[in-house]
């Protein structure tokens, strides 16, 4: 029992270690710490289109490499975050961004959590009320 538990812990640690070992874009792109931090944040927000479930920060696909170069270049040219995102969006669509902008097409995506929470809240209120009524019924009987 304890042995198998230990084994599980070791496996979990190994998995954790291997995940953190995969750093793709290891070289610093910017001398300036703030710019480097901004670069890291930006590339984590852009989807690698060829691998889809990775950001361009996490992927070593050639397209991800090229897109990182584009982000670096635009930053050096003084583009704002919004301008860089707009550049990618004009070419690859909303799908390129992990946080797509709010629009008619993405309204369902953005609003569905709110709607679902509202529905759940409504359901809870109804159930609680009904139970409260039931208690009264038991007391009265």
């Amino acid at each position, binding site marked *: 029992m304890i042995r198998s538990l230990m084994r599980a812990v070791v496996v979990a640690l190994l998995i954790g270690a291997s995940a953190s070992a995969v750093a793709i874009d290891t070289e610093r792109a910017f001398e300036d710490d703030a710019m480097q931090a901004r670069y890291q944040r930006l590339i984590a927000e852009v989807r690698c289109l060829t691998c889809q479930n990775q950001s361009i920060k996490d992927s070593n696909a*050639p397209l991800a490499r090229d897109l990182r170069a584009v982000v670096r270049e635009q930053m050096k040219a003084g583009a704002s975050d919004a301008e860089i995102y707009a550049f990618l969006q004009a070419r690859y*669509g909303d799908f390129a961004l992990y946080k797509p902008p709010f629009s008619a097409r993405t309204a369902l995506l953005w609003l569905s959590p709110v709607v679902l929470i509202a529905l759940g809240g409504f359901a809870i209120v109804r159930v609680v009320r009904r139970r409260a009524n039931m208690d009264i019924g038991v007391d009265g009987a």
Partner: protein
Amino acid sequence: MRFALPLALFIALGALFSFSLTRDASLIPSPLLDQPLPSFSLPSLADPEETVTEHALAGQPALLNIWGSWCAQCGTEHAFLMELARNGVPIVGLNWNDEQASARAWLERLGDPYVVTAVDVEGRVAIDLGVYGAPETFLVDGGGTIIYKYIGPLTPQVWRDEFMPRLAQLGPGGAGD
């Protein structure tokens, strides 16, 4: 009656999910449709001294085919591209993420269906085109507007179902036939 609402929700979600399963999530709709082809200026594969621009596609409806000698699916469609070229369809190639020597060897071995092939040395034109895989094929009208983009290897069936109707809409002389 109590279950009417949950049941309706369940059916609605089931319908949504089963519809979503039939879609291929890897096919990303291009925001470039009905937009002008981005301008570019790249060396030609045949002669690096020569420059290829977007005007290589001007004047009549033409295809822009993104390929690389590393791309297995490009080999799948190559014979059909040769057939299209024989039938007079102008195809401009964009060689992407490739070694130029192996790209030239590829065309020598399999034949060259392209009017001209531009070499996307830095991969920037592919990004301007929203390319994320190869092969991809753009249909561009004579005025340089992107009409359609197909992702994956061209086949006679894709040509018949997707390209021919659009070419027919472009009017006489459009189909290159």
